[in-house]
């Protein structure tokens, strides 16, 4: 039988993450976001981090642990995101203050390019070309190449030290299943990382109890599992409040 990858708690799972790590955080607009692991990382205090995620968070209420909080906590050197500002010009993220003051660096990446850079890193592909972003500000000074009469941008793989993820179901071997829109970046981040930590919603299954045909992320990519306790101890997604218009 494989050795169980279950850890006792979130603090134990994040304990060894050193300063200077590059960490990918799963999640898109709530589902699949490792709220509990982020909260544990806030308490653990690792600094000088590079954080890879879709957004910096902070645009919605109730606010859940997000990358912006790690920035506000002085733990982040750089973020790599497809949003470093709110989607509405009238919303101002707490993150914006740190960016404007030069207290954090930001690399803004189109979302499909971000996903593909992670996928490439997890697939042994060092770089690739994409038509995305050609003719825009993000293409300035970049290497381009013409394929089939169309200009493409060179993009590099984005390997990470750690991935912090959330899944619906796991077995002791680390095989994962996501539910609905919870999947998002999680599978590609798992493959792009050297060490993968997962908070799991359902009770852990024994190895052999999950149908191999139904596995979304194979356990060989997964290292530490933590079961999310029921609220209020564990953090669960809440319905996002509509903002006043």
């Amino acid at each position, binding site marked *: 039988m494989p050795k169980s990858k279950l850890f006792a708690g979130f603090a134990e799972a994040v304990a060894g993450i050193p300063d200077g790590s590059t960490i990918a955080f799963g999640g898109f607009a709530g589902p699949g976001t490792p709220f509990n692991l982020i909260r544990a990382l806030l308490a653990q205090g690792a600094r000088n981090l590079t954080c890879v995620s879709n957004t910096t968070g902070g645009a919605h209420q109730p606010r859940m642990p997000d990358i912006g909080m790690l920035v506000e906590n002085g733990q982040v050197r750089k973020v790599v995101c497809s949003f*470093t500002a709110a989607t509405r010009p009238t919303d101002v993220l707490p993150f914006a203050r740190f960016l404007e003051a030069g207290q954090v660096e930001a690399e*803004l990446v189109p979302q*499909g390019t971000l*996903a593909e850079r992670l996928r490439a890193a997890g697939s042994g592909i060092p770089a690739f070309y994409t038509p995305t972003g050609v003719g825009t500000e993000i293409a300035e000074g970049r290497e381009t190449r013409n394929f089939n009469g169309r200009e493409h941008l060179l993009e590099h793989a984005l390997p990470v030290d750690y991935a912090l993820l959330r899944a*619906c179901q796991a077995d002791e071997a680390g095989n994962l299943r996501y539910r609905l829109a919870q*999947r*998002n970046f999680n599978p590609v981040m798992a493959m792009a990382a050297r060490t993968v930590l997962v908070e799991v919603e359902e009770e852990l299954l024994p190895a052999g109890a999950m149908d191999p045909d139904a596995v979304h992320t194979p356990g060989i990519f997964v290292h530490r599992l933590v079961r999310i306790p029921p609220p209020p101890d564990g953090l669960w997604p809440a319905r996002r409040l509509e903002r006043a218009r």
Partner: protein
Amino acid sequence: MSGTETKGWSRQQMADRLAAEFEDGWIVNLGVGIPTLCSNTDTGDRDVVFHSENGVIGYGPVLPEGQEDLHLVNAGGQNVSLRPGAAIVHHADSFAVIRSGRIDATVMGAYEAASNGDFANWKVAVNAKGGGIGGAMDLAACARRVFLLLEHTTRRGAPRLVRRCALPVTARRVVTLVATNYGLFKPEGEGFRVLELAPGLTLDEARAATGAPLAA
């Protein structure tokens, strides 16, 4: 955005008008903001599959409070329903669908739409630090048609339909159609063609609120 702009179509009417352009069998990506309202439109006999950048293929209307599934969101983070035949993929596969040209139309919000087919929707000011690209650049570069849904003017009354974008563009020469509260417009190089005006609006009113020539 402002709720004071009452001229012409409501946001849902704008979305409905643009959704009337969707053809049977199309795969349509809906972006954040007004475009999410298109999934509430009844497309009748036309079989249209809505794709969301987060890997949801085949979703339907936003669900009322109490009926939501918190594991299921569209690009705007709204809790939506699934239609029969829906499928879920991860982010890299979702953008593979986009880059490989399988999206028949993408519907996006924008700050500016230019008559030369450029548009801007990721940075609120030329000198802004940070921005919100999301999936917009991938979609704009790779979808077969780019449809924009936006208010015709800014809160201060400045035109959003212009000859050339002042803001950093999301993609160049890609816009197919633009629906605003004033009507439906097609970029044609140095100006826009008016395909339809919202009820109660005259061509002169539309011209006064547009930063590019309008041809009837």
